[in-house]
């Protein structure tokens, strides 16, 4: 597919497949189009050319409702609803899309919050919690409808290394327990090497995907100067 916005092609001829149950990383420098690709994948923007299939379906008006049930998204800021506490945030999708009774919804929401270690913060408002807690609460909300695929936009951005590492552990725990597929946008190398099964790397200058595979193998065997530079920079800083 071609990725971008109407009138602006950012990435051309992008082609990859995410396998069920893996953690797949969209990787690259700032402004290379990682988040744009994710916006196509979660149905916020239509692809400019080509086809994109998510959970066996294309994004269109007819499939939208069904596809929305199959995916969960955690945004960079968390995007929790400021007028609701954490419990209400997690209960919202259950309220709208399930026939569960209020008590059952609340039970499930509390269970989800407990799974991300936020059981004690259920009554707190998003403005009262830290960035890392917001992201964990957003993951709990994204998991409310038991999606097949979880999309995470820059989960480590703005977090200290310890919180970031804890979030990576949470992703691995959920992957193990829920057998969920993760698509993660990030450029944090420690996170990538810790959680990724495979990664696709994009380059702004070449307007396309330049590498696809296990990031450890890419680092060890890639001949591409951009790929090597990207990973070696991580060795210095990471």
């Amino acid at each position: 597919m071609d990725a971008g916005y109407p009138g602006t092609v950012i990435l051309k001829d992008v082609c990859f497949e995410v396998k069920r149950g893996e953690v797949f990383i969209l990787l690259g420098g700032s402004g290379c189009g990682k988040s744009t690709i994710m916006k196509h994948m979660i149905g916020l923007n239509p692809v400019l050319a080509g086809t994109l299939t998510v959970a066996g379906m294309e994004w269109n008006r007819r499939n939208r409702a069904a596809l929305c049930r199959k995916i969960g998204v955690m945004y960079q800021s968390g995007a929790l609803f400021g007028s609701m506490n954490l419990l209400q945030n997690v209960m919202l999708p259950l309220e709208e899309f399930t026939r569960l009774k209020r008590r059952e919804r609340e039970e499930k929401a509390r269970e989800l919050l407990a799974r991300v270690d936020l059981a004690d913060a259920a009554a707190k408002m998003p403005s009262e919690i830290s960035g890392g807690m917001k992201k964990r609460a957003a993951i709990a909300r994204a998991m409310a409808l038991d999606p097949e695929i979880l999309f995470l936009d820059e989960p480590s951005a703005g977090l200290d290394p310890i919180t970031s590492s804890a979030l990576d552990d949470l992703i691995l725990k959920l992957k193990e327990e829920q057998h969920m597929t993760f698509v993660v946008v990030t450029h944090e190398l420690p996170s990538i090497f810790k959680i990724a099964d495979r990664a696709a790397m994009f380059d702004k200058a070449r307007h396309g995907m330049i590498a696809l595979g296990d990031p450890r193998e890419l680092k060890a065997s890639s001949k591409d100067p951009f790929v090597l530079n990207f990973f070696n920079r991580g060795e210095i800083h990471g």
Partner: protein
Amino acid sequence: MTVSLGRWAVARHRAFGQLCAFLGETFVEGLGMLLRPRRFRFGDAALAFERACTDGLPITILIGLLLGLILAFESAATLQRFGAEVYVADMITIALFRELGPLITAVVLAGRSGSAFAAEIGTMKVDEELDALTTMGLPPVRFLVMPRVMAAMLAMPVLTVCAELAGIIGGAFVLRIMGVPLSVFCAHAVKMSSVFMLAFGLGKGALFGLLVGFIGCLAGMRTKNTADGVGVAATSAVVGGIVAIAVTDGLLAVICYVWGI
């Protein structure tokens, strides 16, 4: 020059397209709400109503009262020369019930609630909350716009009645100072008012409320992700709301004149 004109035309064309799409989506959601009322978020609408109506009541009553006082003072000064100050009651009643009551209340609503709607939705857009709603399969128009538009539409008639009554009280107070008995003022006011006139004013108020709510929410949904994005959205909600109210009021005045209402 030609290039800038072309860019301006394309931007206007795009904005008009967005307006039509938003209008269509709101209309469809409104119809859907009528067919399946359970989908309507009554709690959110009640909260928006409380903020627009209950919280806005003191300022609306104050403005209405002052409007009545000013109208009475200005007109009484002239009419007194002809010994006709008692007709101030007639004038105030007609002016407030038909025109100024709904108009001034709508301007207050645009300033208070239109800007608040734009700022709330705009902040949510900047914080990616609208994207979150969309990817959850919840249309932001149903979730955020419909409750606010409905709240503004219902708040306006209530606020309009309060502003009109406050204006009448203000006018009565001035005439009482000028020596006109309260009973005479009330008799003239009742004689000049009719159920049709009251209903017309309230209907106009509801229409203005719809416009204020719609334009406020539209401005919020179109907020740009920049440092001043939310501020610009709030400003455009107020300006757009007031312009829409003035234009609609003008059109209604012409229609009433043509139809002899």
